[in-house]
């Protein structure tokens, strides 16, 4: 009953967001403030605004959220009430971020998203990996959010206002501007899982797949990109910040793509690919040009479509097969069972992967080209940042094609080679690979789950053309070549039945372990130390005082011997002592 209500509310709310986006489309930009209160000379309160960016993001959020909500109707069976409520809240928080014109209002949405993601990632709280993934997600984003909050302080106090529309980079001193934007960047890095706060996103995969779709496509991680786009004037006014952003983005996109190349689980590959794709958006933003911002937002939109699609597809795999690990899925691939049984899923997922890989004609191809083009133009103007971005994005494009191809092949196609080649996906039981599981019951998902897939698949193609096709043929051909360069090795490896995964990549450069050793262990030690300190040092003094009192008390009782002459002696000694003491104090 309650669950149904929340289901209806959830779908209704996301439709409402879409509707709002439609209504606001073309309306001239406007702002409104409410619930203000003054603290000293500062005004703390809420404000909303509407402009093109808002509408665009509302549309993205609304559509993805609707797809996710509808999809979840079929996907999720247990604890649906809390799930739908939280997804709705999640969407609402993202909407808050999008429409906000007050930094604090934005922060509310920003962090509520974090909390919702925590709760949703931990939806399957019976599972250990879900619990720890949820905590990790919240803590790492929270760490970034502290920087974000400080950034708000610096910028807000520097400009004397916390209204976004009133933030004037010219009014803020350059030092504060750089400091403030860098601090905001910390928050963005945390939220969008960029290096060095990237580890939470892949670990957040135990959450329900629709939630992953929501997080990766439209909310949460996209919020970082949105924020920089929103504050683009402020950010682009600080060269240092943009350079830092470029470096972070380039490192992240390569790092994440490399990790994705070695991941052995569909959702994990997708998670790393999100990190990598977000980095591409950031790199476009870091160019500091209008074209860069446009490219980034374009990529954001197409990415929302195909990444949402991919995660929902992965959800179908999980839902129907029970696992998204390569090793499990491969068992179903004999005679193409998987792609025959899950025909819609197979087709839509192929579209999604093609879009992600940047196969010409798909949306991802166009948006990525826009980024490369923007970088190229910037580089041509003599910018080092432009060159770095250009090279990184090109490399990433090739890597992306590699891992897309690899995943597509390994999941849906049986390798022609014999089992046992280098790094092939082996079960612990060597013969398990040969047993074909019972695939007779394998069916495609119900229509409520497939409808969003189809919608998004359509979007993953069509969105490339909404902006009008204006290709630079040189760049287009270069990127096509890059895709081929990436895809061919994947094919060749697959056809030989080999999947060499360098240990370094498989362990994701050991960052997670390093963080554990560097932060978690010392904090735990410190915590034990604090407790011990409280108990043995501070508490020790208190107990010591109590014990001293008791001991003194016992001592005085011992002195009370009952012998009157002892008392008299003590008194006479006391007189002398008093005289001496008074003399000492008096003089």
């Amino acid at each position: 009953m309650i669950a149904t209500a929340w289901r209806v509310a959830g779908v209704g709310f996301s439709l409402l967001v879409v509707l709002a986006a439609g209504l606001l489309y073309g309306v001239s930009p406007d702002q409104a403030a409410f619930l203000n209160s003054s603290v000293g000379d500062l005004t703390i309160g809420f404000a909303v605004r509407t402009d093109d960016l808002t509408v665009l993001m509302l549309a993205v959020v609304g559509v993805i959220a609707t797809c996710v909500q509808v999809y979840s109707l079929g996907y999720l069976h247990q604890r649906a009430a809390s799930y739908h409520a939280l997804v709705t809240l999640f969407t609402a928080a993202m909407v808050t971020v999008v429409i906000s014109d007050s930094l604090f209002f934005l922060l509310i949405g920003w962090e509520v998203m974090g909390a919702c993601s925590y709760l949703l990632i931990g939806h399957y709280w019976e599972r250990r990996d879900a619990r720890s993934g949820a905590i990790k997600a919240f803590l790492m984003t929270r760490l970034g959010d502290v920087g974000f909050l400080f950034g708000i302080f610096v910028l807000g106090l520097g400009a004397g206002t916390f209204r976004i529309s009133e933030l004037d980079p010219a009014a803020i001193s350059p030092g504060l501007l750089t400091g403030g934007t860098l601090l905001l960047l910390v928050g963005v890095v945390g939220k969008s899982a960029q290096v060095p706060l990237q580890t939470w996103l892949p670990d957040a995969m135990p959450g329900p797949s629709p939630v992953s779709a929501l997080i990766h496509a439209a909310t949460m991680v996209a919020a970082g990109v949105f924020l920089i786009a929103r504050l683009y004037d402020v950010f682009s006014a600080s060269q240092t910040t943009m350079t830092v952003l470029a470096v972070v983005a380039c490192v992240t996109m390569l790092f994440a793509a490399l990790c994705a190349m070695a991941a052995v689980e569909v959702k994990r590959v997708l998670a790393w690919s999100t990190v990598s794709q977000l980095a591409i958006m950031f790199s476009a933003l870091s160019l500091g040009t209008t074209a860069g911002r446009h490219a980034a937002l374009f990529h954001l939109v197409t990415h929302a479509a195909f990444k949402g699609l991919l995660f929902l597809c992965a959800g179908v795999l999980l839902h129907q097969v029970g696992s998204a690990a390569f090793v499990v899925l491969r068992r179903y691939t004999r005679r193409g069972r998987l792609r025959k049984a899950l025909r819609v899923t197979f087709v839509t997922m192929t579209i999604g992967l093609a879009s992600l890989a940047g196969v010409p004609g798909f949306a991802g191809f166009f948006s990525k080209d826009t980024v490369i083009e923007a970088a190229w133009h910037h580089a041509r103007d003599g910018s080092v940042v432009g060159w770095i971005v250009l090279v990184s994005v090109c490399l990433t494009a090739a890597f992306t094609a590699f891992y897309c191809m690899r995943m597509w092949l390994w999941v849906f196609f049986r390798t022609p080679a014999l089992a046992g080649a280098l790094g092939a996906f082996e079960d612990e039981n060597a013969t398990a690979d040969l047993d074909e599981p019972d695939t007779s019951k394998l069916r495609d998902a119900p229509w409520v789950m497939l409808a969003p897939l189809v919608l998004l698949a359509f979007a993953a193609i069509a969105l490339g053309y909404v902006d009008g096709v204006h290709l630079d043929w040189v760049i287009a051909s270069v990127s096509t070549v890059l895709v081929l360069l990436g895809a061919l090795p994947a094919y060749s490896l697959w056809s030989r039945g080999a999947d060499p995964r360098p240990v370094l990549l498989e362990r994701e450069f050991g960052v997670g372990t390093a963080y554990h050793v560097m932060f978690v262990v010392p904090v735990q030690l410190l915590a034990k130390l604090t407790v011990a300190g409280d108990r043995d040092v501070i508490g020790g003094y208190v107990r010591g005082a109590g014990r001293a009192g008791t001991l003194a008390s016992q001592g005085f009782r011992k002195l009370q011997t009952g012998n009157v002459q002892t008392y008299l002696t003590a008194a006479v000694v006391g007189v002398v002592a008093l005289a001496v003491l008074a003399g000492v104090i008096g003089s």
Partner: protein
Amino acid sequence: MPLILPLLLAVVLFCIGVYGVLARRNAITLLMSFELMLNAVNLNLIAFDAWRVDGLATGQTLAVFVITLAAAEIGLGLAIVLLLFRGHGHVDADAARDLAEQERQETPELQEKGAAT
């Protein structure tokens, strides 16, 4: 006679008295020691009076009071000593120790009859 001589004598007397009070056990001897101390006081008073000659003879008057006091004290003191003898069978001041702090077995403070009512 210089003032210092009676004063010195008084100090000596007083010290003997203090010694007696602290060192002797017999309650009667204690009382006698007190007498010595009071008499040291008297000696002082008289000596100062003679030195001062203030016309009121304050010192001498007080000395008379002190003598009276001493008598009263000794009277009461002897009565108490008698009582002590009757109770204890001896008059040793340091042996009367019934009222010393008893080393009680520390009663566990929380020996309650269950927590629930």
